[in-house]
């Protein structure tokens, strides 16, 4: 096995990604990354003002997919990273790397989507940069967005905040984005009717802040899916999370594609979903808040934190058995076996 090169799996959000971060990037670049790398954004204090600062790059293929494109993904993704820290997102920067030969009409569509997404989220793009690389050196368009938000409350919401007894709540169906993108990819030719759930979650998060000290963790399960995100939080918080398979909201179309390709929806990316860890006595209230919001109509309690541990995730299956949920090494691949 050649350990000297970067593999696609290093970008998939699973174990290989973590290894790259822990073994190479954090030691070489900055120890501050250790905490900022675990949470969705870095928390900084400048002259008494608490800020959240984050960055994300977007390389999705295909760049246009049912329900969205790389542009609105780039805006919503960074807005959401700030929102997951409980920050109010304010300003974004945008960096484009364009491949020579990329169609201006496609760029125009992407830009329009970005503007629309930014307006919906209430953020402004205030600075940016554009570079062009020769044909063959870039996959049409790569986008990086960085964002700044303010924390206007004293709450500490991060991955280490999970407490035994907490209820895990998701705001809607899982696996939509990843399956929408996969269905559109050449070679798989599946007509699923599934659309990406790409959306800005800061509005929903603002509503949830009334839970105050009862809101312990917020995170958006993007690449690697719900399973990977829960495993990360379980390790950070030092707890065991027990999921209830029957409570997982999954669209029938997502189930269908997963059946055909041998995939597990728990590992499929989401772009408009958050996981909230809420103190048990506030869980019903949290659910009600979500149900009242357009992005939370299908919200459900999907699990609970059962005990302290080195960080485990287990699931009670739909037929009453119990199984472990681990982090994948790299990207999930379709299988026939």
């Amino acid at each position, binding site marked *: 096995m050649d350990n000297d090169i970067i593999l696609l799996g290093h970008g998939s959000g699973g174990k290989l990604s973590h290894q790259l971060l822990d073994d190479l990037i954090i030691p070489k670049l900055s120890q501050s990354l250790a905490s900022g790398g675990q949470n969705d954004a870095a928390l900084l204090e400048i002259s008494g003002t608490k800020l959240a600062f984050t960055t994300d790059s977007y390389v999705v293929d295909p760049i246009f997919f049912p329900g969205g494109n790389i542009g609105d993904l780039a805006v919503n993704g960074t807005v959401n990273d700030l929102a997951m820290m409980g920050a109010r997102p304010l300003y974004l920067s945008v960096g484009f790397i364009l491949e020579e030969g990329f169609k201006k009409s496609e760029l125009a569509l992407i830009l329009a989507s970005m503007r629309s997404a930014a307006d919906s989220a209430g953020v402004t793009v205030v600075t940016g940069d554009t570079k062009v690389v020769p044909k063959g050196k870039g996959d049409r368009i790569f986008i990086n967005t960085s964002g700044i938000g303010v924390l206007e409350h004293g709450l500490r919401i991060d991955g280490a905040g999970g407490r035994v007894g907490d209820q895990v709540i998701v705001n809607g169906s899982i696996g939509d984005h990843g399956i929408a993108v996969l269905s559109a990819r050449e070679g798989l*030719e*599946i*007509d*699923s*009717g599934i659309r990406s759930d790409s959306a800005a979650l800061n509005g929903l998060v603002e509503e949830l802040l009334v839970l105050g000290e009862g809101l312990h963790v917020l995170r958006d399960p993007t690449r690697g899916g719900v399973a990977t995100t829960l495993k990360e939080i379980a390790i950070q918080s030092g707890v065991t999370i027990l999921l209830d398979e029957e409570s997982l909201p999954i669209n*029938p*179309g997502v*189930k*269908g*594609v997963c*059946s*055909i*390709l*041998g995939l597990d929806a728990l590992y499929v990316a989401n772009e408009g979903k958050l996981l909230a860890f809420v103190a048990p006595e506030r869980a019903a209230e949290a659910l009600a808040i979500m149900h009242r919001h357009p992005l939370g109509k299908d919200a459900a309690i999907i699990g609970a934190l059962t005990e302290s541990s080195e960080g485990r995730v287990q699931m009670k299956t739909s037929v009453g058995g119990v199984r472990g949920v681990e982090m994948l090494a790299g990207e999930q691949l379709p*299988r*026939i*076996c």
Partner: protein
Amino acid sequence: MCVGVPMQVISIEGDLAMTEVDGVKREASLMMLDQDVVVGDYVIIHAGFAISKLDQEDARETLALMREVFTPELMG
């Protein structure tokens, strides 16, 4: 080693069928099937091929019998 899904035939053109499960559609080849299929039948799809028909009556009977024997307390 045989991930295969029951899918319903919604249209047939020669050796190809359009099949559907839970609203998801995928074309499948009927080339290796030794049974006749018509629209509405269920087939098991593996790697883009129908490998066998699913006998719907047998399926319903199997379920009914299993329910009678193993969950009699739930029967009407």
